[in-house]
């Protein structure tokens, strides 16, 4: 890809009027005719030679564009080597001369095969960062794979740039939206998830420049694996990374029990992405998010989750779409989860009437004795509930057992009587 992208020139160029009128356009089409071209262009070549002698190097875009301005120009292997002079002039590199990058061209005619352009000659820092990032492992990540056609590179603030905020996801997605590529590298296929996420919508539908795009979290040139402690996507760095936009939530998180556990080095404490996911982030008030996140809390708080699943909150909530029944964070808070012993916690005894009262108008001190995740199988913790359940189950099982036996015996006996009476009447044994 590297070699190709060097010669991947724009094909949208308008026909350049710099091609000498005397040259039939067909003659420029391939290198086999180059000697003929040279012969026909002898006067121009002579002029070029004089220029070279005078200034020691190829210096004017106009000189190169005399040939490369023809949009149909191709190299020996059929790749276009045309350059749209007008677009290049407008690009961020428009003030440079061709030979500033194509440094091995010293004379005309130049050799057919040229050394790849080294962006690092000027962009030293970025080049070093890329070489340290996850994108150096393959040789297939030249600058152009993200920045696009080298002759039409625009500043990242320009809407035409491939790294303009609104264009970043598509640029990264050209690789990271490819299921095969993702499978090969053991990566999730993140582009579709991102585009359907709240960030993706903000960017694609709202055109919000501040909406998080790939590089907001991953960086650009210095992208590191999330296993690398230096990476902004390393687990313990995630709150700060998300907090660079969501500053208040980051503060809340750090005051909460999860944030403190993380700061204390407990690596199994959840961070933003454990509940919200990294790429498929949903609007938290949406039922999809409310449906998926309770089991996420439950994946650590297993005993509470089991008890919760037996309650009406869970039963109605599980039917899908119902956003009003209480999920974990409706009572515990989401980012600043605090233990009940903390007076600021919504589940502190003194705050329960208010917390439950948010949904249950008229909640009183007795009402809030309700246990939102009581385990009715635990006799020590909930004796009353345990015996109520035991009684109800005993009643259910004994009534059904008695009547199932009763009914089965009755069925057999009735059928027997029926057959006997029919036989007695000389009828068939049905």
């Amino acid at each position, binding site marked *: 890809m590297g070699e190709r992208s060097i010669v991947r020139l724009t094909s949208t160029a308008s026909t350049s009027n710099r091609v000498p009128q005397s040259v039939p356009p067909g003659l420029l089409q391939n290198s086999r005719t180059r000697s003929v071209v040279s012969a026909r262009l002898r006067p121009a070549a002579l002029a070029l030679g004089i220029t070279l002698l005078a200034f020691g190097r190829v210096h004017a875009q106009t000189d190169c564009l005399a040939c490369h301005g023809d949009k149909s120009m191709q190299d020996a292997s059929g790749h276009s080597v045309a350059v749209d002079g007008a677009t290049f002039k407008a690009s961020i590199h428009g003030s440079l001369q061709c030979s500033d990058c194509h440094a091995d061209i010293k004379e005309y005619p130049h050799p057919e095969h040229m050394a790849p352009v080294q962006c690092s000659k000027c962009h030293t820092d970025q080049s070093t960062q890329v070489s340290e990032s996850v994108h150096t492992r393959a040789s297939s990540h030249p600058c152009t794979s993200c920045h696009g056609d080298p002759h039409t590179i625009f500043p990242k603030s320009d809407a035409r740039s491939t790294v303009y905020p609104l264009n970043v996801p598509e640029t990264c997605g050209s690789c990271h939206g490819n299921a095969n590529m993702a499978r090969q590298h053991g990566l999730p296929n993140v582009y579709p998830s991102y585009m359907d996420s709240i960030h993706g919508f903000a960017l694609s539908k709202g055109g919000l420049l501040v909406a998080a795009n790939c590089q907001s979290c991953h960086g650009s040139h210095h992208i590191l694996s999330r296993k690398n402690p230096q990476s902004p996507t390393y687990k313990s760095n995630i709150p700060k990374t998300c907090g660079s936009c969501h500053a208040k939530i980051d503060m809340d998180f750090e005051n909460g029990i999860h944030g403190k556990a993380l700061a204390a080095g407990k690596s199994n404490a959840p961070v933003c992405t454990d509940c919200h996911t990294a790429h498929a982030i949903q609007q938290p008030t949406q039922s999809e998010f409310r449906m998926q996140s309770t089991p996420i809390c439950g994946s650590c708080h297993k005993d509470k989750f089991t008890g919760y*699943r*037996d*309650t*009406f909150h*869970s*039963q*109605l*909530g*599980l*039917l*899908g*779409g*119902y956003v009003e029944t209480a999920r974990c964070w409706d009572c515990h808070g989401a980012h600043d989860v605090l233990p009940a012993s903390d007076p600021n916690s919504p589940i502190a005894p003194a705050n329960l009437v208010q917390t439950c009262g948010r949904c*249950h*108008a*008229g*909640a*009183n001190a*007795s*009402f*809030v*004795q*309700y*246990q939102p995740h*009581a385990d*009715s199988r635990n006799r020590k913790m*909930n004796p*009353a*509930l345990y015996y*109520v*359940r035991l009684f*109800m*189950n005993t*009643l*259910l099982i004994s*009534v*059904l057992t008695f*009547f*199932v036996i*009763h*009914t089965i*015996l*009755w*069925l*057999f*006996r*009735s*059928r027997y*009587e*029926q057959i006997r009476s029919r036989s007695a009447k000389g009828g068939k044994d049905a």
Partner: protein
Amino acid sequence: MPDLEQKEVSPNPAAEPAPRPAEERYFMRFTREQRYLHAVLFTTFLGLAATGLPLRFSDSVWARAIAGSVGGFGAILFFHKLCAVVLTGAFLVHVKDVFTRGLLHRQKGIFWGPTSMVANWKDARDLFGHLRWFIGLGDRPKFERYAYWEKFDYWAVFWGMIVIGFSGYAMWFAPFFAHFLPGWALNAVLVIHSEEGLLAILFIFSIHFVNTHLRPDSFPMDMVIFTGVESEKEFKIKRPMEYQRLASQGLLDARLATAPPVWLVKFSRIVGFTAIFIGLTLLALTVSEYFV
């Protein structure tokens, strides 16, 4: 369920109370009010079961499908409460009716005697006699107006109405009930509501269906609760004691009724089979949660 539909096409001629020649006599068993009460009871019960089971087994695939089919999570709760209110109304009307007749009008046989729903020694003797007959150790007991299993059905529903109703309203109006219930009771009412509801569903859709409708004597359906009348032949076989008692007291003619109109039999059959079909479907779904 194909069984049922097939049976509907070719009904068992022995048990069909289809219109007979003119000499067949019919006797009144249930009043219009009792039939309407049963109609309201089974309609709302089916509604409560269909909207309650998805909540009880809310993590199953069919729960979400049923919830979706009635308009989603919010609608299913609405319909559950709607059926509950209607059923509560019917229950209160019935209780009022019983007490008006028994206490105010001093009508005999409401609280005691052969025509009462209240259990007596004969019911205990009938139960053991019936069990002995099942295994061939004796004759079939001669049942009175209401057999012991019918009384059990009645009181099971009566008890269930109070228990399920009370626990249901306690959840619906939890902050109000919390004024006089302890905190743990709010946890307990769901367990009670759910288990008692499950018992009612399993009992009605298996035991009641078989005992009353699907057993060989009544197969495929006992129409008497729909038409109100039954043939003399059926009356004699199913409730010989009552038949004898009425005959000896000379009260048999007072109970004479006309044969049910054809349209009523047909209509009742459609309604009844629909109810049984829905019930058996719900039963299958419930059982599948435990065994599949």
